């Protein structure tokens, strides 16, 4: 992997994927050439942004079940994600400048912690589906991220140190 600048875009399937596609399009509209290599961190194989290498994590959230089953899935997913986390550590360690931008999935917490530990910057864009409630990922990333952006102004009441960024 190159010792260049690296932008890691972190997203899941469904609505997160839609946000990532829109964010990537806005970034490309704003510059003639992307300043660095773009890497997709996803929780489903095959949904990487066009032309970007993909690191697939296991989704932490069990959508249909709560209780012990959800906890069991969480532990399983965290263990599985350790290997990918090590790859992120290797890639990030070689980068001249490293930026991770997350648009909401829970698995983003682990790579975000690693990026911070190796001196990179983390930006969390809280998911566009929240207005008056916290997400678990939002609560955690509010503490971890260097910059916490919200797409809905209503969320400034929940995250007073956040920055409003408009909606993707």
């Amino acid at each position, binding site marked *: 992997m190159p010792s260049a600048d690296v932008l890691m875009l972190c997203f899941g399937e469904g609505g997160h994927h839609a946000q990532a596609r829109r964010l990537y399009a806005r970034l490309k509209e704003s510059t003639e050439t992307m300043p660095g290599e773009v890497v997709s961190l996803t929780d489903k194989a095959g949904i990487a942004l066009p032309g970007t290498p993909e690191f697939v994590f296991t989704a932490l959230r069990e959508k249909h079940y709560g209780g012990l089953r959800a906890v069991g899935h969480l532990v399983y997913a965290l263990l599985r994600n350790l290997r990918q986390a090590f790859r992120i550590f290797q890639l990030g360690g070689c980068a001249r400048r490293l930026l991770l931008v997350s648009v909401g999935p829970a698995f983003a917490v682990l790579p975000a912690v690693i990026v911070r530990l190796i001196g990179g910057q983390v930006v969390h864009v809280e998911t566009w589906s*929240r207005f008056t409630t916290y997400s678990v990922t939002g609560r955690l990333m509010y503490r971890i991220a260097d*910059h916490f952006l919200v797409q809905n102004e209503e969320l400034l009441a929940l995250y007073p140190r956040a920055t409003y960024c408009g909606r993707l």
Partner: protein
Amino acid sequence: MTKVFVTVGTTRFSSLVRFFDQVAVGCDVVLQHAEPAFVPTHARGFAFAPSVREWHAWADVVVTHAGAGSVYDLLEQQRRIVVVPNLERADKHQLDLAGYVERQRYAMVVKQLSSYPSVPDLINAALRFDSVSYKKTAFFKADFLLGLLRDGNPPAAGR
């Protein structure tokens, strides 16, 4: 004949799909149901599709789960939609977006399908619903993010 497209995104939403898979006089119903083993009885349907945009354009009314990707996409296309939050999920966060859509009157929101005795009753209510056009402030922090990557610091106008 009113053309109705029902979409549940990537997560199963059986109660919505079963509600619309019943005899619906005056409605032509197509389901995107996310259940590969499910075979509709009265409606037409498919589990997933690479893109549902053509079905959005085909339909007179689109009934959608309250997933943000689907809802915003449809609102931006100015489609007549009905938003139904998926409360079968372990987390109930679709209520948050459904509440926003309802407060802004961007679309009809249905939290209890049992409030409607039949598909035509629900669709007729949707056709009568007086909605407000969707507006948004578009994302304006692209330069801020690019500045972080280029210089390690945000531009002066950033945070």
